[in-house]
C-alpha cells in the first residue's frame, strides 16, 4: 500500500499501511483465513498443472513420468468424445445462462414486492431449500416424478385423461434437455435471488417515495428504480457466470443420466471423469481442466472489458 500525500481541504484522506494494519488488525486477521484457503486450494494446486504436459503416472510421480509437451492436448482435440462433450457443455451452459440467469432476478423482484412479511419469509425459505438438496436426492426425486410409465407426473396426466402415453421427460434427449434445464433453474433460483435481494435493500428508499409521489406505479418503480439499482450486481454476476460457460456439474449430470440421452448428457465433466480420473488418466483430466479454465478466464476478461465499455464497473 503506497503512502499518499493527497490531501483534501487540509484533511489527510489516506493512511500508511502500518497505521491501517495497527488500526484494523482484527479485520486483516480475519481476511487471512480466506486468503490462506485460496492460496492453498487454488494456487497451491498450480504446480500440478504440469501433469497436462506429461504422461503422468501417479504411482511414478512427477520425476518418473515422461514429458510429452502438447501431446495430450493434441490427442484430446482429435477425440470425437471430447468434441461431443465440448459441444454439449457449451450449448447447455449457454442455455442454462439464458434460462437460469434471469430467473433469480425475476424472483428477487417478485419477493421484494411481497408485502405480507410472513408469507414472504415462508416463500423465501421454500425457494432456498432445493439449493441444500444433493443432486443424488434431486435425481431420485426426478426419477420418481418423471419416469415415462411409472412416474407420478405421467400417471397423474394419464389418469386425468390429458395424455395417452407418458411424456418421455427423462428418456428422449430433447425432453430431457428441457427437464434438465428446468430442474437446474428450480434448484438454483431461490439461492441465486439472495444476492439480488441484498442489493435491492441497498437502494435508497427515498427514491421509491419520490417516485410514488410522482405517480409511478409498482411496475414503473420496479423498472426505473429497482432494476437500475441492482444493475451493477447483475453485470458482476453475469461476468462470473460467463466464466463458467465451459464448466459442467458432474453431480447434476450423473443424477440425471441414462443411456437414452447420452447425446446430450455427455458433457465435459462426464468426459473428464470417465476418460480421465476414472481410469487414472490424470494428464488427460488436467489438460481438459486447464483448457476449460483458460477459456473461462478469456470469457471473463472479454465480458469485463465489454461491461466497462458500456459504462459498468466490471469485475476486475
Amino acid at each position, binding site marked *: 500500500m503506497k503512502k499518499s500525500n493527497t490531501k483534501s481541504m487540509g484533511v489527510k484522506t489516506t493512511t500508511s499501511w502500518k497505521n491501517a494494519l495497527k488500526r484494523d488488525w482484527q479485520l486483516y486477521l480475519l481476511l487471512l483465513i480466506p486468503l490462506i484457503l485460496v492460496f492453498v486450494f487454488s494456487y497451491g494446486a498450480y504446480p500440478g498443472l504440469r501433469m497436462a504436459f506429461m504422461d503422468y*503416472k*501417479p*504411482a*511414478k*510421480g512427477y520425476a*518418473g513420468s515422461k514429458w510429452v509437451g502438447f501431446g495430450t492436448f493434441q490427442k484430446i482435440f482429435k477425440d*470425437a*468424445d471430447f468434441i461431443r462433450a465440448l459441444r454439449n457443455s457449451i450449448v447447455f451452459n449457454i442455455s442454462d445462462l439464458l434460462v437460469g440467469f434471469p430467473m433469480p432476478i425475476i424472483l428477487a423482484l417478485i419477493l421484494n414486492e411481497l408485502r405480507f412479511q410472513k408469507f414472504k419469509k415462508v416463500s423465501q425459505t421454500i425457494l432456498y431449500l432445493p439449493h441444500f438438496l444433493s443432486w443424488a436426492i434431486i435425481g431420485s426425486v426426478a*426419477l420418481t416424478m418423471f*419416469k*415415462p*410409465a*411409472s412416474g407420478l407426473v405421467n400417471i397423474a396426466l394419464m389418469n386425468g385423461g390429458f395424455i395417452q402415453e407418458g411424456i418421455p421427460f*427423462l*428418456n428422449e434427449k430433447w425432453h430431457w434437455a428441457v427437464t434438465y434445464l428446468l430442474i437446474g433453474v428450480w434448484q438454483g433460483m431461490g439461492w441465486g435471488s439472495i444476492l439480488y435481494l441484498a442489493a435491492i435493500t441497498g437502494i435508497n428508499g427515498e427514491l421509491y417515495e419520490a417516485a410514488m409521489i410522482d405517480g409511478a406505479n409498482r411496475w414503473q418503480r420496479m423498472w426505473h428504480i429497482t432494476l437500475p439499482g441492482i444493475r451493477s450486481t447483475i453485470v458482476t454476476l453475469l461476468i462470473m457466470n460467463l466464466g463458467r460457460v465451459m464448466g459442467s456439474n458432474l453431480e447434476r449430470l450423473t443424477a440425471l443420466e*441414462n*443411456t*437414452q440421452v*447420452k447425446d446430450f448428457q*455427455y458433457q465435459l465433466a462426464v468426459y473428464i471423469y*470417465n*476418460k480421465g*480420473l*476414472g*481410469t*487414472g488418466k*490424470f494428464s488427460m483430466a488436467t489438460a481438459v481442466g486447464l483448457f476449460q479454465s483458460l477459456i473461462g478466464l478469456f470469457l471473463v476478461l472479454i465480458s469485463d472489458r465489454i461491461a466497462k465499455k458500456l459504462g459498468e464497473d466490471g469485475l476486475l
Partner: protein
Amino acid sequence: MKKKILATLLSASMVMGIVACGSTETATTTEGGDTQAATETTAEAATATEATSAEATAEAGAGMDSWEPFAETVSIKIPVYDRGDNGNGCSDVENNYWTKWVQENFGDKYNVNISYVGITRSDVMTDYAMLAAGQDLPTVCMEYDYDKLATWESDGYLQPYSLDEFAQIAPTYYQSMVDSGNINYTKFEGDDYLVLGFRPYGNTTYTFGTFYRQDWLEEAGFTEYPQTTTELLELYAKLVENGHEHPAGGTKVSGAGIDQNYGFRDYPQDEITWCTTGDYQIPALSTEAQKRFLKLENELYNDGYKNPEYYLRDASEAISDFVNGQSFTWSGYISSTMDTLVALYDNEPNAKLGLIVNSGKFTQDETWGSNNSYRPGSNIGMMIGFSNSATADQMKAAMMYLEWLSQPENLFTMTWGIEGVNFNYNEAGDPVAVGDQSGLAEQQGHNNNVDYWCAVTAVKTLGSIEKDIAAIAPQGLPQDFTADILANYNGQVALYNAGYANSDCMFAQALESVTEYNQTLYDLYAEYRDKLTMCPKEEFDALYDELSQKYLDAGYQAVIDERKQLLDDGLATHLQ
C-alpha cells in the same frame, strides 16, 4: 477337536487343491488337472511368463516359526471390497469385529498395524486410481482380473518381489501356488510381480446361481425350467397371460461383465474369435454371439416381458422386484446367508423357488443360437501385487499376513467365525453357518467374510464338493437347495470336460489398446446396447451392423488387432 480336524482338512484341501478323491472329486481332479496342464502349456508358449524356474530356485522356508516381531511398528493397508447395497453382512468393512480380530491375533503379535481400505466393488479401477493419485495405495493391490493387474503394473502401481523371499516367509501360501500351478503366472516381463490365491473348482461357477419362481412355472403348466430360449419365451408368454407383468424384470447395465455372451457362442469355439473377442472386460459388440444375446434382449423388450423402464432401474430395484413377487428370476452369489431369499419368503410365505440347473448336456437353440454354456475360470483366485510405495518391511509384513491367513486355524475362523455364534456343526461334523447374523457384534462380512479370506482362496472348501456345497447352501429358508447346487456343479463339470466351456484367453502383458479404449468402448456399449434392445424388431439387424461398425472404429478393432498380434507372437494362452 472337530475344529482341529476340520482345520486340518481345510489346510489339506487348500494346499492339495486339486488332488481330491471320490467320484465327484474325480471330475474335479480331471478338470483341475486339465486346467493346470493347460496353464503350464500356455506358460511355455508365453515367453513373458517364464514358468517354472521359481520352483527350481525357491525353497520353502520355515515360515511362521522363524518370524520375529518387528522392532518398530510396521503399518500395512489391505484392500477389502465394499459391496454397498449389493453385499450382505456387516456394513463397515474397514472396522468391525473381524478386522479387530486380525489385528489382535496377527498384528499385535508381530508388531504390525493393519488397516483395511474399502474398495468399491463395482468401481475398482477408479478407487485404485484415486489412491494412487494420493500416493496412498494399499500395501497390496488385489483383483480377480488379470487385465487389471497388468494395467497396474504398466502404470507403475506395483513393484517386483523376490519369490525366494516369499517362499521363505510364506511357505504355506507358496506351496499352494506350486501345487495349483499358479506359480506359472507370477511374472510380468520377466519379473515376479504377482502372488496368486487359489480357486477351488475354478472351472465352474457353482457359487453363482439363478433362482426362479417354481410356483409360477407350475402355474404356467411347465414341469421343469425351460432348456432352450424358445421354450423360455413360451414360458414368459404364459406368465404374462397369468397376470405377471414384465416377468423378466431388467436393470440398466452396471459394468462390462453384465452382458456375457458365453451362452450364445458356437462350440467348439474358433481360437482367433475366442482370443480377440472372447472375454467380457470389453463387450464384444460386432460379434455374432453378442448379436444373438442382444437380439433376445430386443425380443424380451418388444414383447413386454422386460420392464420398459429397465434402463432407469438399478440392481436394488431388481432385488425389490423379486422380493416383492414382481419378477420371475433373481441371480446372485450363493451363500449360507442370502438376505434376498429370506426377504422373499417373508413377503410371500407360499412362494416356491427353483434353482436353474445346468443339465450337462450341450443344447443349442436352433432359432436363437443360444446354449447352456457358461464362463469357466481357472485355478487362479485373487491376484495380488505389492504396491510400489511399500517398504521392504511393509512387503515382508504383507507376506506374513498372507501366510498367517493361510494357516488352517486362522482361515477357518475367518471363514466360519465362532462356533455357536456364526456357525454350528451338523451331524456329520461339518460347520453350517448361521443364516441371519444381523445384529451380532461378531457379524461377518459379505458371504462369510469372503472379501478378507479371498486373498488365500476364492471359495471356502472343506475338502469335497459335497461338503463345500452343503456349507454354502442357503440357511434358514423353507426350502433346501443343496441338491440343486450340486447338480448344477456336476452339469457344468460335464459340459467343461466335453469342451463346451472354455476359460478366457490370458495375455502376458498389458494391452495398450485396452488401456486406451476400454472406457470409451464401455460407454459406447452401454448406449448402443439399449438402442438395440429398444429398437423395433425389424430394425435390429441393420442397426446392429451400423453400431458395430461405429464400435469397431471407436477402438474395438484396435483391441482385436493387438490381441491377435499377441496370439501370433506366442504371448497369449491357447484355446484348450
